[in-house]
Every structure is written in structure tokens, then in C-alpha cells.
């Protein structure tokens, strides 16, 4: 699982029916600087990920998201997703040994 800033949402015109019930978030994965408190903007290098969300996370929040096969584990039906919001983060305590 990685952490990421929710920086937007994705709205679909036509979608696979399996995607109903959740929303899609634009998520910028955390770099080490973000763990230390750096804001999401300006965007750090690295691709932005689209994450399927059933928790109701909003723009500006930090989520923990899981990728790959585990992203579909919460469903009892086949779903075409590979990133899933597992947690909305309340608090981060980060104390790296070396900066």
C-alpha cells in the first residue's frame, strides 16, 4: 500500500457496469518529501494514478491505496480495477532516521 494526495476526480460518460458503486480519484503518489509534510503541489515527478474509491475520499485528503491483484480482493465479482482506496489517512507520524 502507498500513500497519495487526492488531487482530483474522474467522471466517466460510459463505463463498465462493474465500476458502479464507487468513484474514481486522481491520486498523486507520495514521495519521501510528501511523507515529511511537503504539499501535493507543485506535482512531484512521477505519474498520477486513478484509484477506485468506496470510502468517499475528497480532494485534498490523503489516502492509502493498494495496487495490483489486491485491488480487486474486496469484491466478490470481477472488477476491472488495479488501484483501490483502502484507507483515508487521519494522521501521519513520520520520523526518518536520515533526511
Amino acid at each position, binding site marked *: *500500500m502507498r*500513500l497519495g494526495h487526492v488531487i482530483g476526480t474522474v467522471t466517466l460518460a460510459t463505463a463498465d457496469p462493474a465500476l458502479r458503486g464507487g468513484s474514481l480519484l486522481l491520486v498523486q503518489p507520495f514521495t519521501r518529501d510528501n511523507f515529511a509534510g511537503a504539499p501535493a503541489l507543485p506535482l512531484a515527478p512521477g505519474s498520477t494514478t486513478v484509484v477506485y474509491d468506496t470510502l468517499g475520499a475528497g480532494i485534498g485528503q490523503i489516502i*492509502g491505496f493498494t495496487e495490483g491483484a*489486491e485491488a480487486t480482493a474486496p469484491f466478490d465479482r470481477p472488477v476491472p480495477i488495479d488501484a483501490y482506496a483502502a484507507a483515508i*489517512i*487521519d*494522521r501521519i507520524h513520520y520520523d*526518518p532516521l536520515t533526511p
Partner: protein
Amino acid sequence: MQLARIDGTITSTACHPSMVGRRTVICQPLDADNRPVGAPVLAVDPLSAGLHQRVLISTDGSATRALVGDPHSPLRNFILALVDDETRSGGNPAAENPSAAGLPPLLG
């Protein structure tokens, strides 16, 4: 399995049911010289590892689902073991691991 160091913790209220009541830690992956590599990842910690402790992370999703007892858990990483010491070739075994003094250096 990945060598890592515990660099913090997170708390979450709105989360998947399989995370409720479980300690989730921030793990910094390390290279063979214990230097940070890449961005930290999150892992479930059933061993109550201490801050800055070196650990082994398992990335086996099925093992994690068995650990939390939920076949629908999206979790993949968990703290598999706490590291005491490791020795690698090219280093100085006597300095890094006194018990290895007197042994021939590893090949490679």
C-alpha cells in the same frame, strides 16, 4: 521479501474493515548498505516493531489476507520479521558481524 526500516506510523478512521485495530507502519525500503531506496510503503505490523528498527516486509497478498483473517482484504504488505544483523559480500564481515571474524570472505 524486502529489507526496510520503520520510519513512522499512520492512523485512519475510514478504512477497510480488515485494517481496523491493526497497527500500520511506514516502511522505508533499504539497499544492502542500509541506504533508503525509493518512497516509503505501508505495511501491517503484527510484531510491534520499534521506530527505526530494521524489518523484513512480505509482499505476499495471500499471506496477508490469511494474517488478517479476511479473504477480501486489499492489504498486501506485512512485517514478517525483525532483523538482527546481516552480512553481505564485499563488506568487512569482521566489522559488521564480529561472530564472522576468521571466516573467509564471501565470493562475488
